[in-house]
């Protein structure tokens, strides 16, 4: 009796070889998908050509001819469609960035409040989350916009704010700081203070690890970052001039202007996303075993530091991944701006530019690429942060 070597398998026809089969199927699938994609693109191009609809990106440098209400870079109706694209993109980024910061603050406060032992506080937070989370965002945006417009006084009965500002249903108008010669010293002082504060913190931490002594890092940092530039500001002879808003026949001009559309959109997005973040935070905190809190208490830590130093850092590992998707949601939801008249990317580019040029395929492709890029960059940043926050095994 001869032993059959283990490696020698019975001969199977290639047709029944599982490896060959898998590869063949996958190749076939790829080929089919590639063919379908190719024919879809080809078909679209052919149809556009046959209907003599303009295609390509030449429109990018044509004069736009329309006006935009909020422009953070130079723009007028004589600028190009390309410029209008950038105006819209920047408006989207601004509302998304400010929205993310504010929603995070609101969410953390509400999430922690919901776990509070204070009955009223936790019920209020619970009510906020349940009410806001269960209503459509568009409805909320329209509500805030109309609430903002109806609640504020007419232009002619503007509320005058202390310090030379105005508030009415056309927006919030504040004195605009104009930086003059000498301001660069203040900026330099700020940078120096910031570096100093970071250096002090590193030094304080090393000392605490060595000797156990704590240093008042917070106060020193405040002094360096705020105090130092303030002193330099007065020494340099107050190099900021305020441009005050002036009442005209119809509107208030000059100064810093915050549109009601922007406020309504920001408010709606922050309140809505904040409710979701509150739940994420609550889940994250509850995921940290109660033993950790008890251990911290038994070491003599008070509830505040326990939350800050023991619970939250561990909770962050659970919080960050779902928090990322909330950030992405907020950014993408900002495209609802069009319903409250805020000139974001979708309103300006996928709206007016698309309509004026009629080049739906190009415009929508660009818009999708932009949102994809923003989302991927946000994801990357959050993943990097997450890997830093991950539990380090020793």
């Amino acid at each position, binding site marked *: 009796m001869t032993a059959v070597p283990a490696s020698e398998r019975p001969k199977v026809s290639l047709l029944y070889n599982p490896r060959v089969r898998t590869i063949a199927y996958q190749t076939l*699938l790829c080929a*089919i*998908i590639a063919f*379908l*994609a190719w*024919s*879809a693109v080809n*078909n*679209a191009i052919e*149809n*556009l050509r*046959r*209907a*003599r*609809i*303009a295609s390509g990106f030449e429109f990018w440098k044509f004069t736009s*001819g*329309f*006006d*935009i*209400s909020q422009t953070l870079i130079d723009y*007028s*109706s*004589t600028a190009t469609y390309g410029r209008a694209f950038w105006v819209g993109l920047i408006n989207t980024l601004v509302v998304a960035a400010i929205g993310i910061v504010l929603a995070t603050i609101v969410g953390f406060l509400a999430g922690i409040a919901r776990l509070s032992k204070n009955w009223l506080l936790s019920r209020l937070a619970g009510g906020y989350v349940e009410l806001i989370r269960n209503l459509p965002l568009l409805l909320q945006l329209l509500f805030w916009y*109309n609430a903002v*417009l*109806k609640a504020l006084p*007419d*232009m002619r009965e503007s509320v005058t704010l202390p310090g030379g500002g105005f508030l009415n*249903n*056309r927006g919030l108008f504040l004195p605009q700081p104009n930086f003059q010669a000498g301001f660069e010293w203040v900026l330099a002082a700020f940078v120096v203070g910031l570096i100093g504060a970071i250096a002090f913190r590193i030094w304080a931490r090393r000392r605490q690890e060595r000797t156990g002594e704590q240093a008042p890092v917070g106060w020193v940092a405040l002094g360096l970052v705020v105090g130092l530039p303030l002193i330099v500001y007065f020494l340099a002879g107050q190099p900021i001039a305020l441009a005050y808003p002036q009442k*005209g*026949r*119809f*509107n208030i*001009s000059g100064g810093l202007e915050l549109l*009601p*559309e922007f406020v309504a959109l920001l408010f709606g997005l922050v309140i809505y996303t904040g409710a979701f973040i509150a739940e994420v935070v609550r889940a994250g905190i509850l995921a940290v075993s109660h033993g950790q809190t008890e251990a911290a208490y038994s070491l003599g830590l008070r509830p505040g530091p326990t939350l800050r130093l023991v619970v939250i850092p561990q909770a962050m590992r659970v919080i960050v991944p779902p928090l990322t998707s909330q950030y992405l949601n907020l950014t993408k939801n900002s495209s609802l701006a*069009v*319903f*409250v*008249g805020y*000139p974001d990317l979708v*309103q300006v580019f996928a*709206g*007016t530019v*698309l*309509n*004026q*040029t*009629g080049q*739906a395929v190009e415009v929508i492709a660009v818009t999708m690429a932009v949102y994809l890029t923003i989302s991927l960059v946000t994801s990357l940043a959050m993943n990097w942060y997450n890997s830093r926050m991950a539990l380090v095994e020793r």
Partner: protein
Amino acid sequence: MKRVLTSIICAAALGFAASSADAQTLTTVKTRGGLNCGSNPGLAGFGLPDAQGNWTGLDVEVCRAIAAAIFDDPTKVKFVPLTAKDRFTALQSGEVDVLVRNTTWTSSRDTSLGLNFTGVDYYDGQGFMVRKALKVNSALELSDAAVCVQQGTTTELNLADYFRANKMKLKTVTFATSDEAVKAYDAGRCDAYTTDASGLYSERLRLANPNDHVVLPEIISKEPLGPAVRHGDDQWFDIVKWVLYAMIIAEEQGLTQKNISEALGSDNPDIKKFVGTEGNYGEQLGLTKDWAVRIVKHVGNYGEIFERNVGQGSPLKIQRGLNALWTKGGIQYAPPIR
């Protein structure tokens, strides 16, 4: 296998409805048994559904006339409400067969957007509406004013051009639909609301206190509004064009909904050609001999639909003005049927 199926479906959906671009629209419409007509979602006098879902308006009647000419039944129309921003994409992609949605005929729309305008069913021009309390008498006083406007319209461009040409400062607030723009104007967000003059009269009726608002005298642009079809189907282009002409010719000849049946026995050669008792002009269009009779019988002549929807028989009470026949001081004119 499921995945393969999904990707095939996705790709097919992406593939831009290959047939719609060059298909014979008339055949498609006949097979479908109804006309898909892109309409204004709500502009009194032009396109507006009532509580029962019955559409009324000047543009709506043009669609009904096309359906009447094809099917001898003006109800065989499905109205697709479109915002100003979405209307051209809907027509380009074949979602609607014809767009009759107070759309201004411009060169770029006629060329690079891939559309053909078939005529003008309403000669309009852009104006401004302001509150009486502002004591503004002319649009030239509007420098620095906040103006509410609907997105994706020629209005949006004319507005910027007008203010630039007159060296006035402008604050526009742009909305996706006229509904939102009007609401914001009514709430005091803007000093002025701008659109085509006919639209101003129509929208004014929807404001909380219509009498507190006034339409300024300046007309700052030419807005010839008319039906549009896709490039690439000449037969369909001809049909939509001649349906409108037929309504204008009917008014010229004094043919109305009431007397059209008597006209069938007329000896007048022009009327004989119109009603199809002489020649085969309807068949040349790909329709029947009595195509024009069907239009007038079911919908009426141009003057009738004008008065009924925007003129003296309507709450808008707009004068014929430019829209009167060329024989009566206006510029509505149609080539002859022969």
